[in-house]
């Protein structure tokens, strides 16, 4: 195991923002870390990169317990580099920024120069080598930060939304870089992102966080709504229009997640006791390793995930109208909100 953790918690002023009973991350893989805003992704990456100390709990790196003491952490940090969500560059030149990690690793001057240039080339920022880092645009900054981390040639690299401000061309380039460093240099990677396509393109494994806790429910189709009763069954009413079946005794506002694999196409709307049917239109399709991700717009966008074979059976396609069905076993309650009611 690259990382494992037990009862890891981070608390700020009494609020627990991260609470991980159990976590295992394997070596030499690419993980995607997903979760809504504020779910603790950045906090977790900071702990895994040894720049934040958890409030309680045990963390193991390469099966050895991590001692949260500066001396010990310094050694570990030479192997693990984080690219921040909103990276900052030191107020020097782009060159010096990228060279920084190499200096810290006592690389010879000649090699430093070469590696710096190579790294900048990778992210297409070689032209800016001698520019003042402070004046770069948002995307340029993010790309230099990636080059700076790559230059360190770490064993593990953690990316916190690495392409959030990066343009389409470089987004692809960076995704390719991530894949190639993983393939060629056997670097372990964790990428935190809100871009589902990116996650499924890159990741071999996926971790989901919700309100600080790892969750099995896929981070998709998250909706908030009010519990209502109708015909002896309970539903979550989204925007007072869409009724999603849900098993609950709660009342008031809840947050639900509909598992994308649990949503199925229905050839014709027949009365299925446990399901609800919705008419919609396929607005997006993408292929992900034998699976198809389908965005069905039923008024709200539903993400559906099915095997390519199953999808092909239906003979439908982009821009076609379909009926989908949803049953309560695929709906999970992930939280109850306190909202004005």
């Amino acid at each position: 195991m690259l990382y494992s953790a037990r009862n890891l918690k981070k608390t700020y002023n009494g609020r627990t923002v991260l609470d991980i009973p159990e976590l295992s991350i394997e070596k030499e893989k690419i993980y995607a870390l997903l979760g809504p805003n504020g779910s603790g992704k950045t906090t977790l990456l900071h702990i895994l990169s040894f720049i934040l100390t958890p409030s309680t709990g045990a963390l193991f790196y390469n099966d050895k317990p991590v001692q949260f003491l500066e001396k010990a952490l310094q050694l570990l940090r030479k192997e693990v580099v984080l690219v921040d969500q909103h990276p900052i560059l030191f107020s020097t030149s782009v060159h010096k920024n990228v060279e920084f990690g190499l200096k810290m690793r006592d690389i010879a001057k000649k090699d430093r120069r070469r590696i710096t240039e190579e790294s900048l080339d990778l992210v297409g920022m070689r032209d800016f080598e001698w520019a003042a880092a402070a004046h770069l645009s948002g995307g340029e900054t993010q790309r230099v930060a990636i080059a700076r981390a790559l230059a360190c040639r770490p064993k593990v690299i953690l990316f916190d939304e690495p392409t959030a401000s990066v343009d389409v061309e470089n987004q692809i380039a960076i995704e390719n870089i991530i894949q190639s460093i993983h393939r060629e240099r056997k670097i372990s990677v964790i990428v935190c992102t809100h871009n589902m396509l990116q996650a499924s393109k890159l990741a071999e494994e996926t971790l989901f966080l919700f309100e600080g806790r790892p969750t099995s429910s896929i981070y998709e189709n998250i909706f908030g709504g009010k519990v209502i009763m109708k015909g002896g069954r309970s539903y979550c009413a989204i925007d007072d229009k869409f009724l999603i079946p849900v098993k609950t005794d709660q009342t008031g506002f809840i947050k639900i997640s509909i598992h994308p694999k649990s949503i199925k196409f229905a050839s014709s709307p027949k009365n299925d006791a446990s399901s609800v049917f919705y008419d919609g239109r396929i607005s997006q399709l993408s292929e992900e390793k034998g699976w198809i991700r389908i965005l069905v717009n039923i008024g709200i966008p539903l993400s559906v995930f099915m095997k390519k074979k199953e999808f092909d059976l239906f003979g439908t396609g982009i821009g076609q109208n379909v009926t989908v069905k949803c049953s309560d076993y695929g709906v999970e309650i992930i939280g109850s909100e306190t909202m004005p009611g």
Partner: protein
Amino acid sequence: MDFFVDSFLSSLILIRTVDPALLNIVYVSLKVSLLSTLIAGAVGIPFGFVVAVTEFAGKRAVITLLNTLLALPTVVIGLFVYMFISRRGIFGVFDLLYTQKAMIIGQVILIVPVVTTFTITAISRIDTRYRRTAMTLGADRIQTAMVILREARFGIVASVVAAFGRVISEVGISMMLGGNAKGFTRTMTTAMALEYDKGEFVLAVALGIILMSISLVMNILLNYFQGRTAV
């Protein structure tokens, strides 16, 4: 207004004649002030850094105390040091009183709080992401500190400039611990105080003009140097 014209002309004459006594005074002033500033910087910047970046129980108390020490009067410092280095004091045998060393000791005590508090203020304002970034890139404690100090350099240089201004214009400690002995511990300010005592106001201000000119030259050099090392 004649007075200022007189003073200005006198200062020109003083400079033109290259009065060796004056040269010595300027030399002593600069030597003592620069050494004091250097030592205070070497003590105050690291100390301020540590206070700024570490979280500990009495942190606010330490800062409050340092702020209080900004109000330490020169007379108190003078007497405090006097008690230790006077012949009857525990360091009496070193015969420090009325030497430049004594002045430096007193002046360092005077400005360490200045350098420290302003270093703390300058560093506190630096985004913690600089620290985290340096750390994740593999910097050790010292290297991380250097990054943060670099980012806070304007504030820190400002504190050192203020400290230098404070000591070169300072008269109380120089007088009490240096003794204004001609050729040994007479500085521009103690000389000014003496001229003022004598009623030689024109000469006092002329010396003041020279002092300000020297300080101006030092600041221009510093500005030039800073401009060159920026980026």
